[in-house]
């Protein structure tokens, strides 16, 4: 499966995962929240299990499709360190990232999430556009 059909199908599975997690545990499947709570030592078993699941998922994909998903890193390692720090600080300060605000927040029609998604899309587009101009 390739192209937009694969993207749409993958998206449907991501939505199914997020809503299943909410129906089962009562919590929002926001990855920055899960990782932040894990780093802070809260509900280590549940949050840790989700993170282990995230790492196992691509391996199951490799078993099914015969190849690991493609990952092409464009940024240099120093730039990735800066990017990681900003993603970590920003996602905790903004109470969510692409999963919590992007998937469940939009599905709940949360005004906070709509503002968050519009803001990080705008700053993300501005950043990539600026990188293109400079680099």
């Amino acid at each position, binding site marked *: 499966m390739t192209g937009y059909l694969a993207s749409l199908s993958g998206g449907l599975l*991501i939505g199914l995962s997020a809503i299943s997690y909410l129906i089962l545990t009562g919590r929002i*499947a926001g990855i920055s929240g899960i990782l932040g709570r894990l780093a802070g030592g809260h509900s280590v078993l549940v949050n840790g299990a989700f993170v282990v699941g995230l790492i196992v998922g691509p391996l199951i994909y490799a078993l099914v499709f015969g190849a690991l998903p493609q990952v092409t890193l464009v940024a240099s390692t120093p730039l990735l360190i800066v990017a990681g720090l900003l993603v970590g600080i*920003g996602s905790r300060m903004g109470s969510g990232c692409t999963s919590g605000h992007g998937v469940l927040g939009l599905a709940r029609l949360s005004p906070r999430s709509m503002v968050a998604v519009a803001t990080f899309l705008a700053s993300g587009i501005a950043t990539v556009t600026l990188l293109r101009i400079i680099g």
Partner: protein
Amino acid sequence: MSFDLRQPLAALGCGALFAFGLSLSGMLDPARIQGFLDLFGAWDPSLAFVLGGAVSVAMVGMVLVRRMARPVLAQTFHIPQSRVIDRPLVLGSAIFGIGWGLGGLCPGPALAALSLGLMPVAVFVLAMVAGMVIHDRLLSGRV
């Protein structure tokens, strides 16, 4: 409740399904994320299909959630109720977006991509966790 393994098992399964979906969608690849954000260049609209698919399923699921008195494996739902658009929300999201654009990675795909054993991904994840701890210990409540 503390010895109930059903919640961790549910988390493990949902995490695996989430990352399987990310892998299938192509969104594990930072180059494709940056391609989506490159609106004024060689724009790759794939992420819109991923988000559209995910939000549609979650929206249908929310109808079910609103009819449930409690979750299957817990006592109560923990769904954010705030509607206040405050400074931390906007500033934090703006900072997040800059980092997302610079690296082409956000928390879900970054953790899932750890499975490929690439050192730069591990470095990004360490920096991201450090950023989370820096926020939660030093910046939280001061912005």
